[in-house]
């Protein structure tokens, strides 16, 4: 474990710590734990202590936002992860016993270097970076989350896709014995998602393995999940076990479930409404009940990095 010298600690980090250990969060932790009959009343109730080790050698990124980060509590207890249940609290409530390690990841399809790798070996060749990204959910809320991740472009390069590889398909763990939500036919398991090769190798795209400088908590998709900050949150597939290089456009789980409402691209776009609600504004989690919604930005404010990918695309048709 890395022990930081005081001089290494920036004021901003102290603020964020204080922020997620404030009184309201303790109250919230206690009340959620009480209300849901969890054993431990403390923050650690949601993530076992042995999984809360500091990750070492985490670099900074120019893509990080300096907006106010959401609290650790909010990020780990307000989740859509239907593998553990469809309610927002379900993932934190039902994933306590889930031990993600050991974990294996299979790389297959149109690539030179394929195979099945142990999680620790899989991530070893790459640098870890902190990426503080906005996350906009298709439901109309957003957060600012300090991920720790690996550039997916580096991973793709490492596995040497062939010229036939036009898309990257992701598949999540299917294990109903460990994931209670999968015992219900909520969606067609396993959860699947996909990106174009250009999207997968964009510098913004990461596979996240950490949060707030620590190993990724279960409710957020431990041990490894996709983060594409310019797309709606459901593209960020959690608990990835398979990455395939394909020549055909993969279909995502939500796209298969409701094709009229959820598309392959799922780019954040305030001008294209969801059939049942407007996408023009969003509610920033953590701002409280008496804060107005804020305008949603085109491509969630990441246009500078990704707008060129969609120049020739009718975004109303390819939502």
């Amino acid at each position, binding site marked *: 474990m890395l022990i930081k010298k005081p001089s290494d600690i920036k004021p901003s980090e102290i603020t964020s710590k204080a922020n997620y250990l404030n009184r*309201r969060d303790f*109250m*919230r932790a206690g*009340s*959620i734990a*009480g*209300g849901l009959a969890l054993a431990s009343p403390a923050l650690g109730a949601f993530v076992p202590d042995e999984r809360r080790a500091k990750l070492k050698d985490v670099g900074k990124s120019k893509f990080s936002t300096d907006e106010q980060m959401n609290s650790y*509590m*909010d990020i780990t*207890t*307000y989740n859509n992860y239907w593998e553990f249940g*469809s309610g*927002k*609290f379900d993932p934190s409530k039902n994933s306590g016993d889930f031990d993600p390690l050991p974990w294996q990841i299979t790389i297959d399809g149109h690539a030179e270097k394929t195979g099945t790798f142990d999680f620790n070996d899989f991530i070893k060749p790459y640098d870890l970076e902190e990426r503080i990204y906005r996350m906009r959910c298709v*439901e109309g*809320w957003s957060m600012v989350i300090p991920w720790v991740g690996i550039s997916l472009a580096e991973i793709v390069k490492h596995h040497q896709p062939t010229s036939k590889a036009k898309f990257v398909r992701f598949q999540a763990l299917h294990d109903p014995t460990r994931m209670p939500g999968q015992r219900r036919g*909520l*969606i067609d398991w396993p959860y699947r998602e996909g990106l174009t090769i250009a999207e997968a190798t964009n510098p913004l795209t990461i596979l996240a393995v950490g949060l707030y400088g620590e190993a990724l908590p279960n409710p957020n998709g431990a041990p490894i999940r996709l983060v594409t900050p310019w797309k709606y949150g459901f593209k960020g597939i959690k608990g990835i076990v398979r990455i395939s290089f394909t020549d055909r456009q993969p279909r995502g789980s*939500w796209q298969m*479930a*409701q094709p009229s409402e959820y598309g392959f691209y799922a780019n954040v776009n305030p001008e294209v409404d969801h059939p*049942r*609600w*407007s996408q023009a504004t969003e*509610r920033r*989690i*953590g701002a*409280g*009940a*008496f804060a*107005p*919604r804020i305008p949603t930005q085109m491509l969630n404010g990441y246009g500078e990095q990704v707008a060129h990918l969609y120049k020739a695309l009718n975004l109303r048709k390819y939502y």
Partner: protein
Amino acid sequence: MDTLHQIRFVWKPLVFLLCLTPFALVVTDLFEITGTLGANPVEEMLDRFGNWSIRFILIALAVTPLRKLTGRNWLTRFRRMLGLFAFFYVLMHFLVWLMLDRGLYFSPLSEVMPMVAEDLIERTFITVGFIALVILTLMAITSTNGMRRRLGRTWQKIHYGAYAAGILGVWHYWWQVKKGPDDAIYYAVILAVLLGLRIYWWRQKKARQ
């Protein structure tokens, strides 16, 4: 104390306080006295008020079938209060949506109105919910003894609106979820039983005539 007095001065106030408890808990959770509304308090308020709206409509619609099945005629004395609580929770649900979600609390009416109008017209599940609110408002306004006397037969017609409000409420809930009916299916089943019993009794009555 005779039974009527007991109902009026003991049971009615008790049931009133019980019906008000979910509202009180939202307020005390909002200010984090009793608990919390979680990471997204506005969504949580909408969910809780919405759920209690449908529950109270169903409870009010259950009074007459229960009376008929059990012969406990005193149940009818609680029907108006339960119906008014259904209206109260629908109104709270609407006000949280209008003030805190659509933002009338923060922005002038001229800014909020176009957005609200678009929602009410273009998004069917919101239209459906709003019609239920209008029906329950009419029922609440005409719920006094004086109004009932004055309106005569029209009163009964207005108050058949409870069936429509039940159907619209469950429909509204069914359609707003991201995918799948979720809890909405339980409400739909209960509503179907309550309305089915009425159709059954109505047909029996017709057959006897």
